[in-house]
């Protein structure tokens, strides 16, 4: 089976609100695709539609070219982690994996393999209700890997994890993608996907705002901006603004300048005897790039909240 997820023109209405409003994107094998947007942007709903749990009013969602519900042993095609807390607390972790394995015609041997792969040996025979959030996430990922699927889909896997757990999941996701799998990971925090995702699908209000590689995204957000470090902030601002630059103070001693080349800035500051310690091309963080993109969506939401408060 081809390792792809293809979502085209999904629309879904919940009462008054459009949860999905023309959601379209493709997830390709060999890299981690970040699925990012504010809470309520339609990420989880899209994943549920892909898995056939929710029905879309319009549009199609295909996994390896086929609708999910037509797959005979779906866990051999797609591994999904939607909600790590969705466990019956009185069942042990191993038995949770065991019934899932039996549903796919897999045996207990495969269960023990994924338990070992995820380092769950010591917890596997304890009741899942007593697991920490990090252990539940591991169990959820073990379940997703049971069928050794070419496609993986994880909804907010970083939620509630300690920094160690976040680093571990990032590394794990990268290694899954390196093996040639298609990996779709949702998050409401872009920074969580730093150094993990190669492709980013940014969503807001039920549709895709941007679908781009991480390198392009950062380049666009950094475009033509220069970071200037100086102790004489106001003098520098006056001089540069006089020459037509847009200057924003980002820190006590740093300015972000756009509209002027770095050489021109150095010349101007030297001519006017403004002291500075560093001039560098600005490299936007993933977070900044994301905020740039989603500003409209966020403003819309804040506006709506004010309306409601009135």
């Amino acid at each position: 089976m081809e390792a792809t997820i293809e979502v085209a023109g999904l629309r879904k209405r919940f009462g008054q609100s459009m949860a999905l409003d023309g959601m379209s994107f493709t997830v390709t094998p060999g890299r981690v695709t970040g699925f990012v947007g504010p809470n309520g942007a339609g990420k989880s709903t899209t994943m549920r539609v892909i898995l056939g749990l929710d029905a879309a009013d319009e549009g199609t969602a295909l996994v390896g070219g086929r609708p999910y519900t037509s797959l005979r042993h779906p866990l051999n095609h797609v591994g999904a982690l939607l909600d790590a807390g969705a466990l019956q607390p009185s069942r042990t972790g191993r038995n949770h994996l065991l019934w899932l394995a039996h549903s796919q015609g897999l045996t207990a041997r495969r269960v023990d393999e994924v338990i070992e792969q995820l380092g769950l040996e010591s917890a596997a025979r304890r009741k899942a209700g007593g697991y920490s959030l990090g252990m539940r996430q591991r169990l959820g990922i073990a379940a997703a890997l049971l069928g050794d699927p070419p496609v993986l889909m994880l909804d907010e896997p970083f939620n509630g994890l300690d920094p160690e757990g976040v680093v571990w999941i990032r590394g794990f996701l990268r290694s899954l993608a390196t093996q040639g799998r298609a990996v779709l990971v949702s998050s409401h925090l872009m920074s969580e996907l730093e150094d993990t995702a190669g492709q980013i699908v940014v969503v807001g209000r039920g549709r895709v705002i941007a679908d781009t590689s991480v390198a392009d995204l950062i380049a666009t957000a950094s475009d033509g901006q220069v970071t200037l470090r100086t102790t004489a902030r106001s003098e520098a601002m006056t001089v540069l603004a006089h020459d037509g630059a847009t200057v924003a103070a980002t820190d006590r001693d740093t300015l972000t300048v756009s509209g002027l080349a770095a050489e021109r800035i150095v010349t101007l500051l030297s001519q006017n005897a403004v002291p500075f310690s560093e001039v560098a091309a600005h490299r936007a963080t993933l977070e900044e790039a994301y905020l740039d993109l989603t500003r409209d969506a966020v403003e819309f939401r804040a506006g709506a909240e004010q309306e409601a408060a009135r």
Partner: protein
Amino acid sequence: MRQELHAEWTKLRTLAGTRRLLFVIIMLTVALSAVASAAVTCPTAGCDHDAAKLSLTGIQLGQAVVAMLAVLAISGEYSTGTIRTTLTAMPRRTTVLAAKAVILAGLTLAAGTVAVLASVLAGRLILPGNGFTPAHGHPLLSLADGPTLRAAAGSVLYLALIALLSLGVATAVRDSAVSIGLVLALLYFLPTVIYMISDPDWQRLLWQISPTNAGLAIQTTTHLSSLPLSPWAGLGVLAAWATAALLGGGLLLRLRDA
């Protein structure tokens, strides 16, 4: 369906509550049956008691626990969110419900058989001491006796049908508390209402469509002609309820977002 059955069996088998509830079904059924057999006496010849039905009284209590077992088998998945995992692993939803129904019916039949055999045995041991003797027109309770065998086997089937009815209701309703409330109202409140109605035609009609009243007709071994429905027709009424509940639950399971 084989893998769905295997998965649902593993699922139910690995829940601690399942074994406990099965044990409670047997204990309560046998306990109430024994108490009922011990409480009734037959001091004179020709006393008008249905000994077989009497020895199976515990079914009326055991059915409440059967209903709980069946409701929890599906609503426990909704309350924890496990249902999404289930339907992700097994997207053929009606097959999942069918597998659950088969496993539940099987477990209930097994527990019901033990409970019914022990109840009849208790009756056989206790009743003669209370005057249920051949001299008073009551031969020793025996499964070799046709009507008694029908009452006993029918009681086991009755419990299994109660399980299926409850599973169907819980699949449609999804919430544990509401489902158990609805099923218990159907099992206990409806018979009380029928008892309070004075109009005999209405009473008879409601009796005929009530799952407990009609269903428990299967236990009757005396005065069959005075029953509003024959024993097997009565059990058929309960079977119709169970089928309707499962069909309704299955349809909603298919149509609704999980």
